């Protein structure tokens, strides 16, 4: 098993931070250099949405990779990456509100209620906010078991977020379908490898396994 010193873990986290922030620096440069297309608003909204989606894929990859590579230290980047999903989602929602709706509250409310794909996006955003707020160690301890129940909603998000993308496009559905397949594949992989299921298949006697939800 690969072990890291606390210094190495810090270095690894720094690299992850840089990887997550660099695209925003690049976007800022593009917009300032007027290279974000004739309508930077749409460009920014799409770019930050893709940032959230890619971070979500990264989060979902952490524990399978940590297991497959026997690299448990990787698990320590999961909270950081999860917060970047929320960070990009914030930028996505804020740029939609600021650059597309131009701060029209009435339009925001109308759009959320009337447009199913935006409603789904809003549900995802609220869930992500809940996950971010409860991501602190103190809150986690206080919440006890309920913390895990809440944070299992990441499995819902893993499907709902790419569906929101699929639903939003006019006809270019291949890219969103690829995301849906990747994330669904990761969910199925997790389900197959879940301790509960493995115990069940190990001794198929039908005895109820002790309930313990895998992280």
């Amino acid at each position, binding site marked *: 098993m690969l072990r890291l010193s606390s210094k190495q873990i810090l270095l690894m986290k720094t690299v992850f931070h840089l990887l997550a922030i660099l695209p925003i620096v*690049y976007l*800022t*440069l*593009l*917009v*300032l*250099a*007027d*290279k*974000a*297309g*004739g*309508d*930077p*608003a*749409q*460009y*920014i909204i*799409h770019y930050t949405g893709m940032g959230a989606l890619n971070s979500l894929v990264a989060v979902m990859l952490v524990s399978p990779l940590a297991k497959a590579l026997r690299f448990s230290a990787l698990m320590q980047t999961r909270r950081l990456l999860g917060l970047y999903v929320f960070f990009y989602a914030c930028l996505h929602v804020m740029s939609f509100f*600021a*650059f*597309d*709706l*131009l701060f*029209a509250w009435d*339009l925001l409310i*109308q*759009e959320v209620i*009337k*447009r*199913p*794909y935006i409603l789904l996006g809003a549900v995802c955003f609220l869930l992500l906010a809940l996950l971010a707020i409860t991501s602190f160690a103190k809150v986690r301890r206080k919440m006890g078991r309920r913390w895990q129940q809440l944070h299992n909603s990441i499995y819902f998000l893993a499907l709902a977020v790419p569906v929101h993308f699929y*639903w*939003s496009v*006019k*006809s*270019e*559905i*291949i*890219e969103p379908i690829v995301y849906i397949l990747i994330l669904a594949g990761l969910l199925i992989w997790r389900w197959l490898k879940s301790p509960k299921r493995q115990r069940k298949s190990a001794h198929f006697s039908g005895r109820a396994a002790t309930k313990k939800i895998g992280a």
Partner: protein
Amino acid sequence: MAASNFKRGILQKPRWSIRENQVTPEAVFNDRRAIIKALGLGAVGASLPGQVQAGLFDLFGESKAQDPFVTKKLDFSKNSRFEVNELLTPENKVISHNNFYEFGTSKTDPLDNAQGFNVNPWQLKIDGLVDKPITLNFDDLTGILPLEERIYRLRCVEAWSMVIPWVGFSLGSLLKLAGVKSSASHIAFETLYDPEQMPGQKSRLMGGGIHYPYVEGLTLAEAMNDLSFLAVGLYGKTLPAQNGAPIRLVVPWKYGFKSIKSIVRIRVLDKQPPTSWNQLAPQEYGFYANVNPEVDHPRWSQASERRIGEGGLFSAKRIATLPFNGYQEEVASLYSGLDLHRNY
């Protein structure tokens, strides 16, 4: 119809008011642009020489070293009957924010991928139910009829809009040259099919699932309406590749996807022809596709639009969308008795 009927979220002026003083001359605009660009880059501390900056963006595959598509100045007169008392969308935005799926589905793809598009030689055929079929070669496109400039609003079905000075001639005048037979009822248009030049036609991933060649259509009455226009240029020059060179349709009271680009064939028919977006998603895009704030797209509202104008991110305006994109005076009579909620 009185000017007060044209209610908008922005300045209201009579329809006939002069626009010249509101429009920034292109040269001044370009200078200003250069200054803004320089300031923008300076602000992030990237006061690098131009080539280094270009290299930085090349690194991320944003710009490709390719000779740009060549456009030429056109001789034309201004048609004062078709002006819009609203600010023009700056040229650099008109030519860098395009839906032209033949060159990729993102708004910047056409600019990136269409620069090598070869439009000379070109052939545009006008045939079908006509007395005299016509074939226009590349030079005929700008020579067969006197060119005029018209300023039109362009409303995309995605709820953004522009104001664009087109150069070209009316569709009706071309159809009259060919002589439309009395049995005719519709006009069909077809874009070039050339997968070697148009990567979107070659790869489904790039082309967004449209069945190419892209086809569009109008009723004969719509086609003969004064507003229906064949553009060979914009901002006084021949069309850039990404805007539909060398010739495209402009029907300003309909959503932008009706204004088919890079046309190779115009057929006069006695029945309604299939149209590309309608084939792909009939519940979302109808044959008529008239701009209508009261009929929402199933997934988004059409009640308002974001006008792409001059300046940065916060300079865009959200304005109310007008029935027939503000051209109801000219075209509403074409649809009397037609249920526009059903015939969207």
